[in-house]
């Protein structure tokens, strides 16, 4: 499953173009690269927007939804922006509350999961005792336990944070500890041979090795944390967007309902993409950890230079195929001459 999730990164963003644009180390040509990055991300956003709007209209048409109940993107736009009263402002306070709840939950859940995974590496028995249970609990409808958590911890911020954190805790724990365990044996042997303590091995080898999995789990967890926060707001506190959406449904205010859903989805996607951006920026610092996919048979290979991810064979296959790659690089990508 971890493999499936870490592939999310490869599949859903990081076109060759914006990898090139964002990923070039060194200072040269930055205005050009920045411009390229901006153009690429604007184009990508526009593409997403067009797809979503088309799917939205298609959904309404396929299921023959009545106009009174089903609002089109145009209706939502009119309600939010064009209306004289300025309906956007009533979402301001609830949005802040929901984002705070989700953010706290995501942070708490991730910190706890990473802490637990690290202690599992150093203390194997704990992993053997806890991990099977974590595997089972990961698949439990934890959100369905909201009433119980509210019963124990009350109806304040603690309960909401715990609910949103629980939802994010188990996927992150499972993904990160599996990634920590999957460190190449050769690297561990090397550390062992040099007499490194387990702590140093963890810091120098295992943690950098698990970073991709951590980021994959973070972006998987971000929408989950938002779901947890919404559910907690609906069932426990009666504040925030979660409560606003449910109230709108109960009072048949369908414009309000659809607009709320659009805003929540927007936040979720922005969070998801922001984590992706942070991921790419941080992974640049760990050049050697980056992997590409060889176009020859799609195996991963380490890339020391950030660059195109797909559509290019790894060095070994390039040599084996005796391909036409003569090592030519465009001027801005050529390595600097050493003095």
């Amino acid at each position, binding site marked *: 499953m971890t493999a*499936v999730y870490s592939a999310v990164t490869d599949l859903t963003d990081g076109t060759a173009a914006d990898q090139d644009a964002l990923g070039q180390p060194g200072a040269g040509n930055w205005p050009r690269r920045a411009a390229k990055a901006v153009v690429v991300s604007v184009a990508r956003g526009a593409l997403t927007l067009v797809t979503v709007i088309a799917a939205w209209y298609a959904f309404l048409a396929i299921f023959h939804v009545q106009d009174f109940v089903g609002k089109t993107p145009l209706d939502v736009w009119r309600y939010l922006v064009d209306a004289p009263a300025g309906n956007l402002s009533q979402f301001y306070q609830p949005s802040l509350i929901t984002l705070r709840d989700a953010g706290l939950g995501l942070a708490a859940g991730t910190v706890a999961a990473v802490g637990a995974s690290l202690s599992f590496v150093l203390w194997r028995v704990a992993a053997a005792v806890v991990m099977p*249970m974590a595997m089972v609990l990961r698949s439990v409808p934890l959100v*369905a336990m909201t*009433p119980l958590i509210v019963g*124990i911890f009350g109806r304040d911020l603690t309960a909401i944070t715990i609910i949103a954190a629980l939802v994010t805790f188990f996927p992150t724990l499972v993904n990160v500890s599996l990634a920590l365990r999957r460190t190449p044996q050769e690297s561990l042997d090397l550390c062992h041979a040099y007499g490194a303590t387990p702590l140093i091995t963890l810091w120098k080898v295992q943690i950098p090795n698990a970073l991709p999995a951590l980021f994959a789990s973070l972006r998987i967890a971000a929408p989950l944390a938002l779901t947890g926060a919404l559910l907690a707001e609906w069932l426990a506190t009666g504040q925030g967007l979660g409560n606003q959406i449910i109230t709108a449904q109960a009072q048949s205010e369908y414009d309000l309902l659809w607009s709320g859903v659009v805003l*929540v989805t927007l936040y979720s996607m922005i969070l998801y993409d922001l984590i992706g951006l942070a991921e790419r920026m941080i992974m640049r610092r760990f050049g050697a950890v980056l992997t590409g996919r060889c176009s020859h048979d799609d195996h991963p290979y380490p890339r020391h230079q950030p660059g195109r991810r797909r559509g290019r064979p790894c060095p070994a296959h390039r040599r084996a195929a005796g391909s036409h790659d003569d090592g030519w690089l465009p001027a801005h990508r050529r390595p600097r001459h050493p003095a």
Partner: protein
Amino acid sequence: VTTIARRTTDTAATGLDRHRPLVLGLSGLVILVGVWQLLTATVASGNILWPTPWQVLHGMITDGWGFYWPNIQTTTWEAIQGFLWGNLLAVAVAVVTVLIPLLERPLLRLSVVTYCLPIVAIGPIFAIIFSGEEPKVALAAIAFFFPTVVGTVVGLRSSDRTSLDLIHAFGGGSWKKIVKVRLWAALPSLFAALRIAGPAAMLGAIIGEDLGGSSGLGVAMINAEQTLDITRTWGIAIAATVVAGIAFGIVALLGRLVTPWARAAS
């Protein structure tokens, strides 16, 4: 030499004592119940919101099969329908992305949007658009759409290059490649995704029932909570957990039977 020795002893140990993981895993469960019992006996003693494990177990036995079985049946049936529809659609989308590269990016972005759409938010919309058990089925289906798409696409892409070349050499097109090679190569990764799809479908169905319905685990849970029957709320939560665990187990077992060549990883 030390490493080799260590590795050998490791394998020897696991070979000798194959049941060790099971024992340790079960001891985790025992510790959890023990901590629960300890907390209710000390810190939360007398707290009506925090029943002991034995009270919950007693409550479950008192309510009995006659109370749980109809609710479990309703929820499971909704989850199964959602599971079938959602996975069918997800696999179809994944196949289309491989068949028509031009559609790959829009379709994958759309899948990400469905993932970012919190089911708590889309639930009310489904509730007003659909009727009967349809909103629950739709929620169950959307809950795992994205993981299945990603799992299938990854699987379809990971197919053996030589086999694809072979089909190509015999004059087969992309459709033949998908039917003869790619779908088979995708099975292990698809089953990895399906394993979490089962429990996710249960969650979608339960949230759909929370939003309105006449029977099912979600409805029973809301009722129990509103009548302040905390022991029964715990019982229903545990029942939901057990059903989700069984769903996970069935898909995992099926995956092992259908794809015996896949490594039993993660």
